[in-house]
């Protein structure tokens, strides 16, 4: 702000409070590349030994991490696609099209946006069991996408609301159908919104733990969070270096995506996500 105020005390206070997190991040990276000696915080010599789970099973009897990585990509990618397609269409309908029960749907959207969805997990679990989608990636993708949907429609509606009506009117005037206008004229206008929502739902699904753990715990549909938790649970001694290395491998895409798209994402996180 201005020079009238000293910033040093603020720096000191913030640094002290941030110290635990900074230590956690620092040792997350340091420990995975060095030989850690129990009882010492000084990093040992450089090694890649901790990363051996990339070419052999992390524990005897554990599956390879690559199958879980592929599943996580399918899970996050599938969720992202469904969220994008349904939000892009529903957001447009709610923003621009006349239809019966429009205000009812809008009110429902706001309510769903706030509704604590995780309470439904028990009945979703039973429903998936009954219709036979339990322990499949498809089932858990659909559930994850449905949970993201209210936020997605909400955000897309916001982006559509900001597109000038004149673009659409010009298109209709020139004889294009409403569908063509949407596809050829409006969608290009809201590309930033689609990108942000896509990245957001990809990240959410990538980090998701409870849903896959409950709805798809089997080996065929195992995602990285469930895989990592299984490694943690199978340990009697807490081998933190192994956990951290797997965790760093798991979280690397998230951090990279976040650092690149930081600005775009802030809009959505600020728009009110769960937490």
């Amino acid at each position: 702000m201005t020079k009238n105020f000293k910033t040093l005390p603020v720096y000191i206070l913030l640094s002290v409070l941030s110290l635990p997190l900074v230590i956690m991040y620092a040792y997350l990276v340091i420990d995975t590349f060095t030989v850690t000696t129990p009882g010492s915080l000084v990093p040992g010599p450089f090694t890649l030994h901790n990363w051996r789970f990339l070419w052999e099973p992390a524990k005897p009897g554990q599956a390879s991490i690559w199958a879980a990585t592929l599943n996580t990509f399918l899970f996050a990618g599938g969720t992202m696609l469904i969220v994008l397609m349904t939000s892009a269409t529903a957001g447009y309908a709610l923003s621009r099209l006349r239809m019966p029960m429009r205000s009812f749907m809008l009110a429902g959207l706001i309510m769903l946006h706030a509704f604590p969805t995780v309470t439904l997990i028990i009945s979703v679990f039973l429903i998936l069991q009954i219709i036979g989608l339990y322990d499949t990636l498809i089932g858990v993708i659909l559930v994850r996408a449905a949970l993201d949907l209210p936020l997605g429609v909400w955000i897309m509606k916001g982006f559509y609301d900001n597109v000038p009506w004149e673009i659409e009117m010009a298109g209709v005037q020139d004889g294009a159908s409403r569908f063509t206008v949407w596809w050829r004229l409006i969608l290009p206008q809201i590309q930033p919104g689609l990108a942000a929502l896509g990245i957001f739902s990809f990240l959410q699904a990538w980090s998701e733990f409870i849903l896959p753990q409950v709805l798809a715990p089997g080996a065929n549909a195992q995602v990285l969070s469930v895989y990592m938790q299984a490694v943690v649970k199978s340990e009697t001694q807490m081998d933190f270096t192994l956990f951290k290395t797997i965790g760093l491998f798991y979280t690397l895409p998230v951090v990279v995506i976040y650092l690149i798209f930081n600005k775009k994402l802030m809009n959505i996180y600020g728009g009110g996500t769960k937490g």
Partner: protein
Amino acid sequence: MRRSHLLGLGFMTPAILLTLALFIIPVVLTGVFSFTNMSTSTGITGGAYEINPRSIRLMKDAGLREGLIGDLEENLYKIDAAGLAQVEKDFGKKLAEEMKGAYDGQTFKDRRELVRAIKDLKSRPRSSRDLNKAADLFQKSILNVRYDDESAFLNGLGNLGITLQDGEQAELTRFAYTGWVWTTENFSNMAAMPSTYRAAFNTVLYIAFTLTFNIVFGVFLAVATFYLPSAAASTFRTIWFLPRILPHVLYVILWKWFTWDTGFLSQVLEPFGVAPRNWMMDTEINAWVSIVLINGFVGASLGMILFSSAIKAIPSSMLYASEVDGASRLQQVRYIILPQLRWPIMFTSIYQTLSLLTSFDYIYLATDGGPGSSTTVWALYAFKTALNNYGGNLQYGFGAALALVLVGIGILASVLYLRLFDFKSMNAAPRIEQ
């Protein structure tokens, strides 16, 4: 119907279908399931009819006629074709035919009775061991035999010669049914169990502490970073934002490493004579501080973002003017910034109360509700009852009843949330008619 109506509804269809299948139906079914006794042992779909040790125990508890329970529990001996064929194989045709002539279709209460009957026959086996063996070939029991429907079950009872007195049939089939049935017991159990009240108390405690931490710390972060140059501010914001996007499993592992008895805190404090210990799970208070901090560090970042953008909206001329007039920093925060944050703070409080009420994954990963059940909040309690019970029997019905309470609160709170919105401006009519 106009064409744009059709287009609009068509555009809405995927979203409506997905919402219907995974929001509306689950809400309704949570209510339905909560009035059943579904569990691992009853299964989810239909059931069968079977008398087993568990149903015998239940019948005894319910005070059914002792003679009947005795009959069900006892082994009976019934002379039938299958048994006779076996006798023919083991002891020769003669004995089999003689038995068929004398006793076919008869039922004997116990082995001694049947052995005595066989002894009356001419071609009886000599040794008592063989007699017992021959009798055992006719041993029958209704225990642990599954019947697919009620009439098959009653037939089975009749074949064994178990006679029912008036009015016993309905009760017996009810006890023998292995599938789920409608019941209101979940709610009476809920009201009677002390663990319910403990979970409710824990939830209130958890929300109060975590929400306070989130708001106070969120305001602090937003205000503090506001006064720093932008590079430093965004560095600190990134540090505090990362917990929100880190996978939950990893984030909690980092906390465990920090607090474990072989972890960071113990190692740092050891030279100062503090014995290493598990700072997270050592005492109930430690566990509480841990889960509030773990959730609070994540929750504060939401406040930080929302409050930061609210502070940015303050006209800078106001702040300059206050400085010229000699306001100290604290005065500036107190009289200019905080009033501006009133609305975002209210929004964040409602929003986070709702999500704290129902989120349990950080607690589940960190303390798993322990030590004991001291950090088990309501949502975790429901989750563990229905889906994560190491005892083996998952009580879906009871879990659904617990979840129904949260669903009810959720619906009420979302209505409140709807009232807070400027709904009229959102609902502005589309401008193209066609």
